[in-house]
Structures are given as structure tokens and as C-alpha cells.
């Protein structure tokens, strides 16, 4: 456990080594949130109602902020792992006294946390000034716990895509399409509440909703039933995806051929 904590700290230090770069990269959330505000401000105004399907403009903006924070702040592990598989550098991690997947988890978390914090703080300032104050503090623990589970779900899928390099020459298309499925079925650009009922049903039965919609929705409008549904969904998908990931990792290791060094 201590060695993974050390790996986490190294990732954290790496991420914080260039604060100007970190803030510059986080700056893109300002563009996205400003554009989203223009879109939803006009949309709410033309709907002639304060709320759409239970969400106000303020709720929608804070929902989108949390979703964007997760999307822009999560590590792009698929590309890293697939490069390691393709160029053989995976061998240098495998022969160290730590588990490959736990190494990626600790390092990825260390790099991701400062990025997410920076994105959230920058974005929150803008959203607060445009749309109003954040949701009540009581919502925050529920949302941030769901955010942590969502991060792990993303981690599992990213690792699976990266490990696909054992069998596919190019994994980038998998990554693009996965990201777009999160955009749509995860409710990243439009909250799932605004979708037609049939699509909401489909989305809620897939993992993407628990990777994005869950934490963002709990942040703005939690209710006991929804909270239970989201945590249960996350738990089920965590079990399923972790199982598949461990299986895929062991299969991949059996295919791995290392020739010298």
C-alpha cells in the first residue's frame, strides 16, 4: 500500500511541477462553460419557463461544470497504456515490485487530482458569476463520493481500451467513440433529464450514465431514490468492469512477448 501511496505522490508532484501550464490547460473549461451558458441561457429563455424537467438554468450550469471537470480532468490512460504495450515499455513496469494496474491507478489519480481541482475552481468562479451560487453544501459529499466512483469506472474502461493494444493495431478510435458515448449516454453535454423517456431508460441501463450523469445530478438536485439508484448502479458496474479488466489484463499478459531489452 505504501509504495502505491508513493507512486500517487509522485504523480501529484509531477502534475504540480508546472503550475502555469496546469492553469493554462484548465483554462479551456472557461471557454466551454461560457459557451454552455450562452446556449442554455437562450434555450431557457425561449422555453418561457424557469425550469426544464426539474432543472433550472443554475442547476444546469453547475451540473455541466461537474461533468466537464470529470471529463477534462480524468487521465488519458488509454493512450498511455497502449503506447506502453506497443513500444514494449510495459516490460519496465511489469518487472517492478508493484501491480501494473495499481501503478496506473495511483499515478493516474495523482496526476488527475490537481487538474480536476484546478478545473473546478476556475470553472466555479465563472459559473457563479454567470448563473448564481453553487448548490447547497449538503449536496457536496454525496456528489463527490459518486464522482470518485465515476473516476474509477472511467479508469477501468480506459485501461481496457489501452490493453486492447494487445490485439488491435490502433486503439484511438475506441477511445474517441467511448468518449462520444459518454457525451451522449452519460449526459455530458445535455443532462439526461432533457432526453425523451425511452432514451433515458436506455442510458440508465448502461454504465455511461453512472460515469457522468450520476455525480453531476447528485450535485445539483439529489433525492433519496435517485441517490440509491446511482450508488447501486455504480456498485454493479464497478464489479462488472473491474472483473473484466482483471480478466483482460491476465489474458494480455499471456500474449506478451518480451525479447531482450
Amino acid at each position, binding site marked *: 500500500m505504501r509504495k502505491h501511496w508513493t507512486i500517487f505522490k509522485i504523480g501529484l508532484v509531477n502534475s504540480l511541477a508546472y503550475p502555469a501550464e496546469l492553469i*493554462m490547460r484548465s483554462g479551456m473549461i472557461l471557454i466551454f462553460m461560457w459557451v454552455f451558458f450562452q446556449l442554455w441561457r437562450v434555450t431557457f429563455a*425561449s422555453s418561457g419557463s424557469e425550469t426544464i424537467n426539474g432543472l433550472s438554468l443554475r442547476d444546469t450550469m453547475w451540473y455541466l461544470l461537474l461533468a466537464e471537470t470529470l471529463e477534462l480532468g480524468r487521465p488519458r490512460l488509454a493512450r498511455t497504456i497502449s503506447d506502453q504495450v506497443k513500444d514494449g515499455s510495459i516490460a519496465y513496469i511489469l518487472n517492478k515490485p508493484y501491480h501494473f494496474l495499481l501503478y496506473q491507478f495511483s499515478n493516474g489519480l495523482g496526476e488527475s487530482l490537481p487538474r480536476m481541482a484546478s478545473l473546478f475552481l476556475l470553472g466555479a468562479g465563472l459559473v457563479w458569476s454567470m448563473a448564481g451560487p453553487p448548490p447547497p453544501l449538503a449536496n457536496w459529499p454525496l456528489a463527490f463520493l459518486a464522482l470518485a466512483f465515476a473516476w474509477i469506472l472511467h479508469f477501468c474502461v480506459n485501461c481496457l481500451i489501452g490493453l486492447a493494444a494487445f490485439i488491435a*493495431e490502433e486503439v484511438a478510435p475506441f477511445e474517441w467513440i467511448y468518449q462520444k458515448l459518454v457525451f451522449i449516454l452519460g449526459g455530458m453535454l*445535455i443532462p439526461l433529464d432533457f432526453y425523451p423517456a425511452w432514451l433515458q431508460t436506455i442510458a440508465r441501463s448502461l454504465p455511461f450514465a453512472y460515469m457522468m450523469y450520476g455525480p453531476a445530478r447528485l450535485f445539483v438536485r439529489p433525492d433519496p431514490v435517485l441517490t440509491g439508484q446511482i450508488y447501486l448502479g455504480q456498485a454493479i458496474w464497478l464489479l462488472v468492469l473491474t472483473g473484466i479488466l482483471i480478466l483482460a489484463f491476465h489474458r494480455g499478459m499471456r500474449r506478451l512477448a518480451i525479447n531482450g531489452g
Partner: protein
Amino acid sequence: MADEPTLTGSPHSAHTRAGQRGLLPFLLALWKANLAAALEFRVAFISQTLGMILNDGVYFVVWILFFDRFPTVRGWGLTDMFLVFGISASAFGLAGLLFGNAFNLGDIIVRGRLDYYLSLPRPVLLHVLTSRVTPSGLGDFLYGFLSYFASGQFTPAGLGRFVVAVILAMIVFVAFLVLIQSLAFWLGTGGAFTGLAINAIITFALYPITLFERGAKLILFLVIPAAFMGAVPAGFVRAFDWGTIGLMALGACGFLAFGAGLFQLGLRRYESGSAIQTEV
């Protein structure tokens, strides 16, 4: 540097003039070689092309869902989005196919990798930009046409206008990338800023321009030229208008002049550690 390289070439010798005479054959040969290199990894090339078409198509579903729920945004509807998305995707893809290094020019400058191009009797900027192909660009380029056909605005003349619009939008986009990344000559770094700039122009180009008020629109024409990648060319595809094509041409020439001019200015400050590098 005693002999400053110019935008169109280094005035070192008669090689330059010979190089300029054969500029088009040189570019064609370079593009052909780039394509051949990309096709060496045929499965990766095809999967990236098809993957990008699918990726763009899936992304557009967001707009279909949005306009299904909210049919217009200040007069802007799904048809407009098909056109804007089509032009932006094709222009973005064409930039990657023909001028692939436009996306990492800043990195080339910072790492001192311009040495290679400076030593050759070819226009430096053009040579750098065309020395790389982004395989997924073909997917974006083709998807743009699919989006245009799906818009319900297809006519043979409209297709001609679409092609013109894509070329002019691509010039603006590449020029903007050159402009932004030439700042690396002064800043010494540029990765994060480049990413920010690319995200900004693409994001603004893909959203209805009717969302933005007058001040913001001015920025989208003069600072982040997203209007020239989306709304303006979309208007031209819908109906021919001399004013619109004039505006597009002016935007393309203006940003190209600014981009190339700044690169040229930056080149005077360029230094490298004479590192041994291999261009592959």
C-alpha cells in the same frame, strides 16, 4: 543569421529560385510520400478513418437530440448545424491531411526541430506544415461531406460552394494555428496554449452563432476566427453571395498574412542547440 529565411524561402542561393519554380510538384510529391507513409500502417489508417467518421457521427447525435427537444435557437436549426458541422469537420480534416504539422508547429519550434527545414532550399513554413499527415483527417474530411448531404441542402452548385467554403475555412484554420503557435518563438513553450486555442476555435465554430452578442461576434471574426470556420461559410453554401465569399476570402488572406508574418518575425529569433535530429 545573415541571410534571413523568408516566408517563401531562404535567399541563400539559386536553389531557392529553382525550389520555388517547382513548388507545386514538390508539394504534390510530399503529399504523395506522406500518404504512402501513412498507408504503410494500412489497418491503422483505415481504422482511424472509419473510427473518425463514426466518432463525428456519434457526436452529432447530441445536436439531433438537442434540436429534437428545442427545435430552434434564435432561428438556428438542425439544418444549420449539419452545414456548420460539415464545413468545420471537412476543413479540420483537410488541414490534418495536407498541413498536419500545423497542429504541432509550436512543439517543433520549441524543440529546435526547424534546423532541418532551414537547411533545405524550400519555403520553410510550407515545408514544415506539409511534412506530416494526420491519418484521422481523412475521416473528418469525408464526414463533412456526409453531413452536408444529410443537411437536405444538396444541389450540384451547392456542392461546389461547399468545396470552396471548406478550402477557405481550412486556410483560416491553418493560418490561425500558425499564428498562435508562432508565439512559441517568444514564449518558449506553447503546448497548453495551442490546445486552448484549438479548443476555442472548434468549440465556437460548432455552436450556433446566433447565441453570441455583438461584442462576442466581433471576437469570433477578428480574434478567434471561428465565424470563418462555421457560420459564414455555412451561409455561403446555402446561397451564393459575392459579399459573403469576399468576406471569407478577406478573412483567409488576412489571417494567412498575419500567421505567416508572425512566423517570419519569429524566425529571426529562432535558436537551436544544434541537436542531431532525424526527420522520418
